[in-house]
């Protein structure tokens, strides 16, 4: 174990812990744009700089391993000034369009500008102008808003193992692009969108949808495969407008293309909205009231049972539906109708 002092507080941490992690363990909030606990430290944004006794210049706490006896200061007038300048420099090449940005309210850069009270910018000058190449249906890239934190590149490589995007050019011209600057051709898991600290990467389905005003957040479980990812549904009225996942979940906030972007079926116009009855074989479906449909089903089931015995009935419950529904369904067949003819598609 290693003992160090941060802002006057002593802490013991495991070997290999970074100064940033140690600070966070103490509940000290050090600003960053490029750090994510789930990825390797990168040291790109320079916002997490701290002063360490014995070191001539401030260092990035995310890439500095804690050492025994270290004395760290995470806040000082000098650090404040340096951080503010960094944010100003980032904003000097950032479109000032929070009002129409999908990520407003959900943007680390916006939050920093607010924190440092940056309205005017000392560094106004040339701005990047990237061409938009977005023919894919899921991810909108607004590269003028990119802060080159590298989170998207790293998550794609380190977590997803795909490597669909990389860095190109140097200095002011530096940018993150798919090979040859073409449109994205990847698994569309959207991990990059989830980690992007600004509005540079957003979900195409989110555009024009409410951001926070009137939006309800509901924690639930994904309905697709057996991974059981925890998701948060963002809804506005009865519309599902976005799917997120908290990094603290057992799936660590990672989702796949279906879980993250495959939610349109919920509000599909094709949804069944009324009970339908076909009164004779070969006839057409007719709309029916619930009472009518439920009575009809119950009567048919009981009639068949009375005539042919309970084993002339069978039920298929559902690997798609809830435990409670499945329990009640099999109980109805076993206890209510008297047959064990009950199964589901576990075998498909």
């Amino acid at each position: 174990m290693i003992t160090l002092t941060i802002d006057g507080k002593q802490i013991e941490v495991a070997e290999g812990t970074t100064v940033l992690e140690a600070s966070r363990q103490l509940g000290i909030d050090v600003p960053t744009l490029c750090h994510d606990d789930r990825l390797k430290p990168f040291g790109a944004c320079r916002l997490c700089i701290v002063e360490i006794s014995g070191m001539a210049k401030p260092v990035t706490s995310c890439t500095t391993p804690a050492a025994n006896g270290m004395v760290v200061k995470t806040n000082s007038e000098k650090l404040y000034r340096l951080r503010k300048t960094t944010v100003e420099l980032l904003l000097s090449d950032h479109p000032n369009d929070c009002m129409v940005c999908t990520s407003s309210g959900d943007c680390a850069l916006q939050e920093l500008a607010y924190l440092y009270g940056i309205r005017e910018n000392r560094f106004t000058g040339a701005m990047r102008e990237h061409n938009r190449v977005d023919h894919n249906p899921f991810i909108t890239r607004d590269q003028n808003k990119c802060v080159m934190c590298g989170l998207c590149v790293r998550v794609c490589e380190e977590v997803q193992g795909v490597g669909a995007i990389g860095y190109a050019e140097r200095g002011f011209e530096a940018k993150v692009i798919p090979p040859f600057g073409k449109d994205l051709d990847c698994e569309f898991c959207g991990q990059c969108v989830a980690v992007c600290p600004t509005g540079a990467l957003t979900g195409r389905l989110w555009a024009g949808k409410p951001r926070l005003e009137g939006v309800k957040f509901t924690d639930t479980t994904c309905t697709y495969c057996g991974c059981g990812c925890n998701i948060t549904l963002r809804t506005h009225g009865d519309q599902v407008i976005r799917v997120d996942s908290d990094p603290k979940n057992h799936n660590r906030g990672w989702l796949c293309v279906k879980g993250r972007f495959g939610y349109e079926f919920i509000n599909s116009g094709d949804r069944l909205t009324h009970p339908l009855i076909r009164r004779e074989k070969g006839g057409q479906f007719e709309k029916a009231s619930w009472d009518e449909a439920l009575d009809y089903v119950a009567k048919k089931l009981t009639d068949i049972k009375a005539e042919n015995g309970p084993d002339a009935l069978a039920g298929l419950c559902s690997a798609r539906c809830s435990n409670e529904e499945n329990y009640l369904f099999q109980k109805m067949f076993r206890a209510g109708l008297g047959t064990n003819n009950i199964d589901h598609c576990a075998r498909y």
Partner: protein
Amino acid sequence: MAGLATKFGSGAMTNSVAEIADNEAIFVIGSNTTENHPIIALRMKEAVAKGAQLIVADPRKIPLVKFATLWLRHRPGTDSTLLNAIMHVILDEGLEDKDFIAARTEGYDAFVQSLEPFTVEYGEEITGVPAEDIKKAARIYATAGNAGIYYAMGITQHIMGTYNVCAVGNLAMLTGNVGKRAAGVNPLRGQNNVQGACDMGGLPNVYPGYQKVDVPAIKEKFEKAWGTSLSDKIGLAATEMTGAMLDGTLKGMYIFGENPALSDPNTTHSVKAFSALDFLVVQDIFMTETARLADVVLPGASFAEKDGTFTCSERRVQRIRKAVNSPGSAQSDLNIIDQIYKRVVASGDLTEKPKAAAIFDEAAALWPAMAGINYERLEQQSLQWPCPSTDHPGTEFLFQDTFPREGGKALFTPVPFVSSKELPDKEYPYVLTTGRELFHYHTGTMTRRSSGLNMIAPEAFVEVNPADADVLGVAQGEFLTVSSRRGSIKLKARVSKIVPPNVVFIPFHYSEAAANLLTSDAMDPICKIMEAKVCAVRIEK
């Protein structure tokens, strides 16, 4: 699941997903994990990045192969022979875990004897995997400090599916790789709540919690709990129901949240069967292929519109919560079932709505492994069964001390060679194998209603090896007619080295070119699964 239950006393993932990252060796067989369980695959990639050795056994060059130390491209349907040959090498080289075998297993001698014919040479001949690679796989798996096996429908959807599962279990037992953290036998469940539907008794032979309907003491317990007499006759499996509908024994069916008219192998046969019923009621959120055949269609609720729980692949019970209202007059499925139940038994208050939490409690009280789980706890955190009491933290991995069989030991089961039912011949010279692709899910009822997913994966295709494409004279994107003894579909060719020569692959999501019109309904005699992964087809331009 029947295979694992025989060997271990219970069938589910023995480990948790997070443990995968700590595996030293990972053996993936019959699972295209990256496309079918994308988030579980992330843990596999994490393990590889940390230095784990990954063995992938799959006839197709699935995306996971890119991360593999060793790829075994065995012929479709030869999984158990491959596994047996690997075990033969382990015994030859003395790599078995003698202490584990002595202390925690039974049936070993008969099993060792059964392995005799499965030499590496024989293995190479049957599976097409070079003998050297079989040896390498044996060494990687058997010498790792902990090794996990991960499999899915590629193992089970065969006529010898139960045997395949037994072979997987044998391999883990032989090397002591079960009952430990990050070492075990892990069937990856294909749907959000297959585990839960099984747990809740959605099976013809067991009540909730895998308690057998034909054991008098258990039947009595449930009769007491439900206040009525119950049948001790094991019911029909879904795959057997088709025949029973056609011969008239089954007259009425209630299908809820499933689309067997597209997902069943040999669908022509099953559609004919559903049409033969006197009465079919389907409860779903869309007018599925199955609902079209129904006499009554009841509009249910999507997962976003109801409260309840799902149990995912790693036995983790988790809440789903209502976020939006259902469209039109669609109702919560629990409510619909409850209403029909009350009307069928002609008792109960129709104005009273069922409460998910109370029904969960009722189920939990009947199954000791879930007895410690309730909604109050689930509000704080999800829990993995077994969780026998409310102060129990849930179980990360199974069988640490004992196996839930009589005597507490795991059972070795001899696995003979069984050939796939339908092998290629002159008339039908290609092997067809089926599966899912990343961008769609099962019969596509949901994903094909997502504009983006449909834009990226708009249509059905058949993967054909370039060598076969040459012979057929077909170019990328040209239409091919693929026929089996059961049906014929027309779809575009995707010329790709993902499939080996003489093998073609078709995803089963697309109703307009439904792969399951071709697949065979030959059935595993033990667990009644159908052989969707191997059948013989003919291809014409």
